[in-house]
């Protein structure tokens, strides 16, 4: 039996288990189960506020640690020189289970706190030092530039002095100030000044404001500081100017200072005395050197601290994440005060119960206690979660089918069949040997480099392609096969066998040759005689459209038949008679008949008969519009046969409505209604409703069921027609693909095929490269995605609507491997 191994046909059998876990061993047990990834825990305290749960304290502590780890991670990411982070598989693991676990976590907490406080302090001091450095550099510039101003003014000094001497006697204040001045060449100013720096952009505004405020009683000069100031935090540059403003009087100076501060200038006190200025300059330079040394040392200390953090960052993140999950899970348990145990409930696959028991025992041994947790199976009527055990190959297929809806518990899993039908339907729309090879090789590369690529962070888009590498592999393989069928390799044909068509001799340019068929046929695929023919599309379209209908009807029939195992498994034999049989007869009597006529028409040699080959489309339409009368018969006795089929279809629909409603009320099985229905549809319907009148006390339910069943029936009938037509997209996309491929060839390489000379060859090479790039981007990637989408739609809508019930919830076990890695 398939019980030995899990199968993808249905969900695994799940059991509800109860665990009795002694408190000492609780943490280690959950850690072990999390590593295993096999158990989905139920929340046993749904009404408890998250702040009132038992392990809230531990979670808060872990959250603090997580915050610190996030802070480190942000600091590392913000570093301009990339800090190497030791990856998880390379780091030494931190033991968080067993008797020393609590100690390890405490140590980790302390380490994280220490690192954080050190890092924060270093950041702060670095900031302060940077600001000081900037101020000192600005002061240096101010000193230098004002030296220039004063030197220039010195030249004009003598004029000013003479003017002063001529005027009234010097005031007493001037004498005082004169005594303070030393040596030759010194400047004596009556005007006082304000110096500082300001953003270059604001200087003109500053000048205008000052002019207006002081009514022109000022003299202002300013120069650029050549090097811009780089803000270490943001990296943005600011350009500043040094300005010096001369004015007379305290009130004016106060106004100037206020205006300067409001504009965001920094003011620096400068001495008028040149020697004092020189001394100040020296002092500033010395201080600047000191600060820069300190800054450099702080920077390198911080760097080494961060590098040390980078060594262990991943293992800290791992530990914090796991501990958080463990405590959150522990919060779901029920605490039994009397026996000092925690009770847990959860779903496990029945097959894995022994593995879990082994894990529980090993957890007890590790923690050193003697009381093991007890596992106990419960009986329940609740619906278990749906679990399809996949491996790396089937995972992709199951995921794309699960995107439509999770299968109900123990329902037939459409993902199993999609492993082959999905790539095959894709290939019908993509058929080209060359393009098939391209995507096959792309998939092969991804698969062979699997281990390496899985460790990298590939990004969203490439990651999606990598996730579906096995799907792409099969898509490529089947595309090569359908490419052989369509005889299309990069829009050319292969002549692997002798063509069945013979073309008589050519007459001249512009003449038309009609091929004649010989005695043998091209055995595998489309005859290459059609390649390049004027009416190529006439034949190929007819062939592909009919093929789409044939394959579509077969796919839908297959999907419909998948209902039967579901009905059997869920013990609903009524549904087989009331749903499945009418549906399949309806589908077969109309569209199965169409497929048979297609195949029959192909098998007849119409050149040997004297009847004109009838159009199948007209035949199908007139079968409905005027049943019984056939204008161009395809075969003998067509008229009555078609009437019979039509009646079968109608009967089945009536039977569906009648039976389901009837039987759904636990009557004694379905009455034989087929005789009555043949007399007329209205009567059959009327009979069912008349009977409803008798059952007054159940009238409400009966009405609902009947309405539900009518809707279901109409949906199925219309669905059959629309879905069959929908399969024509197989033709449409393959036509588009073939035409695109042909156009690409004829517009690029074809014109350059007879290269003349070196230039011709170079042109050919360049245009070939262009052709190849466009092939990959347009034909493989764009068309590939388009065909992928349509093949998926066919599975989701056309196939799944025939049997899929859905409504299951997915199995989400506690699994450390699958938990998101939040940075």
């Amino acid at each position: 039996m398939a019980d030995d191994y899990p199968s993808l046909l249905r969900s695994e059998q799940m059991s509800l288990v109860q665990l009795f876990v002694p408190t000492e061993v609780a943490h280690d047990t959950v850690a072990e189960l999390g590593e295993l990834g096999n158990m989905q825990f139920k929340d046993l305290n749904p009404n408890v506020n998250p702040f009132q749960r038992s392990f809230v304290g531990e979670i808060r502590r872990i959250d603090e640690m997580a915050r610190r780890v996030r802070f480190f991670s942000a600091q590392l990411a913000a570093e301009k020189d990339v800090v190497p982070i030791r990856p998880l598989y390379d780091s030494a693991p931190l033991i968080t289970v067993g008797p020393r676990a609590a100690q390890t976590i405490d140590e980790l907490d302390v380490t994280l706190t220490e690192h954080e406080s050190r890092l924060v302090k270093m950041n702060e001091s670095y900031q302060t030092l940077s600001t000081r450095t900037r101020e000192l550099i600005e002061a240096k510039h101010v000193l230098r530039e004002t030296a220039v101003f004063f030197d220039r003014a010195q030249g004009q000094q003598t004029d000013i002095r003479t003017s002063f001497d001529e005027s009234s006697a010097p005031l007493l204040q001037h004498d005082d100030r004169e005594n303070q001045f030393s040596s030759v060449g010194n400047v004596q100013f009556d005007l006082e000044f304000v110096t500082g720096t300001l953003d270059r952009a604001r200087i003109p505004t500053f000048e205008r404001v000052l002019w207006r405020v002081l009514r022109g009683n000022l003299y202002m000069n300013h120069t650029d500081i050549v090097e811009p100031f780089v803000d270490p935090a943001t990296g943005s540059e600011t350009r500043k100017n040094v300005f010096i403003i001369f004015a007379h009087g305290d009130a004016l100076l106060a106004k100037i200072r206020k205006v300067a501060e409001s504009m965001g200038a920094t003011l620096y006190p400068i001495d008028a005395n040149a020697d004092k200025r020189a001394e100040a300059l020296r002092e500033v330079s010395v201080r600047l050197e000191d600060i820069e040394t300190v800054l450099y040392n702080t920077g390198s200390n911080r760097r080494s601290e961060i590098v040390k953090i980078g060594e262990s960052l991943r293992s800290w993140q791992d530990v914090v994440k796991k501990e958080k999950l463990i405590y959150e899970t522990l919060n779901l348990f029920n605490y039994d005060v009397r026996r000092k145990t925690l009770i847990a409930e959860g779903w496990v696959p029945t097959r894995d119960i022994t593995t879990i028991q082994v894990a529980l025992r090993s957890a007890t041994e590790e923690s050193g206690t003697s009381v093991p947790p007890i596992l106990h199976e419960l009986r329940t009527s609740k619906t278990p979660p749906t679990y399809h055990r996949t491996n790396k190959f089937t995972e992709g297929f199951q995921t794309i089918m699960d995107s439509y809806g999770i299968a109900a518990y123990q329902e037939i899993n459409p993902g199993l069949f999609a492993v082959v039908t999905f790539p095959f339907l894709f290939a019908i729309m993509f058929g080209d040997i060359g393009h098939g090879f391209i995507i096959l090789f792309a998939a092969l590369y991804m698969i062979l480099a699997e281990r390496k690529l899985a460790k990298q962070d590939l990004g969203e888009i490439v990651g999606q392609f990598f996730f579906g590498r096995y799907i792409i592999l099969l898509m490529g393989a089947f595309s090569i096969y359908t490419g052989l069928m369509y005889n299309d390799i990069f829009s050319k044909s292969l002549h692997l066998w002798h063509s069945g068509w013979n073309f008589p001799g050519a007459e001249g340019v512009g003449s038309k040759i009609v091929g004649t068929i010989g005695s043998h046929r091209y055995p595998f695929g489309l005859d290459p005689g059609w390649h390049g023919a004027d009416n190529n599309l006439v034949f190929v379209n007819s062939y592909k459209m009919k093929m789409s209908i044939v394959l579509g009807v077969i796919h839908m029939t297959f999907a419909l038949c998948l209902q039967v195992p579901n009905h059997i498994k869920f013990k609903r034999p009524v549904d087989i008679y009331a749903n499945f049989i009418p549906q399949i007869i309806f589908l077969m009597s109309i569209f199965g008949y169409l497929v048979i006529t297609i195949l029959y028409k192909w098998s007849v040699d119409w050149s040997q008969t004297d009847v004109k080959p009838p159009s199948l489309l007209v035949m199908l339409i007139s079968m409905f519009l005027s049943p019984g009368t056939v204008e161009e018969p395809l075969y003998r006795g067509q008229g009555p046969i078609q009437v019979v089929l039509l009646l079968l279809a109608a009967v089945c629909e009536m039977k569906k409505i009648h039976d389901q409603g009837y039987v759904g009320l636990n009557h004694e099985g379905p009455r034989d209604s087929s005789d009555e229905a043949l007399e007329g549809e209205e009567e059959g319907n009327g009979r069912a409703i008349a009977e409803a009148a008798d059952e007054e006390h159940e009238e409400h339910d009966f009405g609902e069921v009947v309405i539900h069943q009518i809707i279901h029936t109409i949906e199925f009938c219309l669905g059959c027609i629309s879905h069959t037509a929908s399969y024509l997209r197989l033709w449409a996309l393959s036509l588009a693909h073939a035409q695109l491929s042909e156009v690409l060839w004829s517009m690029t390489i074809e014109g350059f095929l007879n290269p003349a000379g070196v230039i011709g060859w170079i042109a050919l090479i360049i245009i070939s490269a262009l052709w190849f790039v466009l092939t990959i981007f347009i034909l493989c990637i764009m068309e590939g995605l388009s065909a992928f989408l349509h093949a998926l739609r066919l599975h989701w809508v056309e196939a799944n609507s025939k049997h899929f019930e859905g409504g299951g919830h997915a199995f989400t076990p506690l699994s450390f491997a699958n938990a998101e890695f939040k940075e």
Partner: protein
Amino acid sequence: MASILPVFLVLVIVAALMTAAFLFVPKGPNHTVIRTGLMIALAACYLMWMVTYMAQLHPLVSPVITIKAED
């Protein structure tokens, strides 16, 4: 060889292959997937080949080629 015989011949061969796949796939964790995959692949490939072959058995149109200036 313009007969319908190859269709039935290949059908027999493919049916035999499908039966072989059903019976002889070794039991293991991927038993169901391999078996189902092989059988559906064989059936699908046969169907497509059959349709292509039958469509060209007694064609109702013949290819028409226009002689071009070059060659």
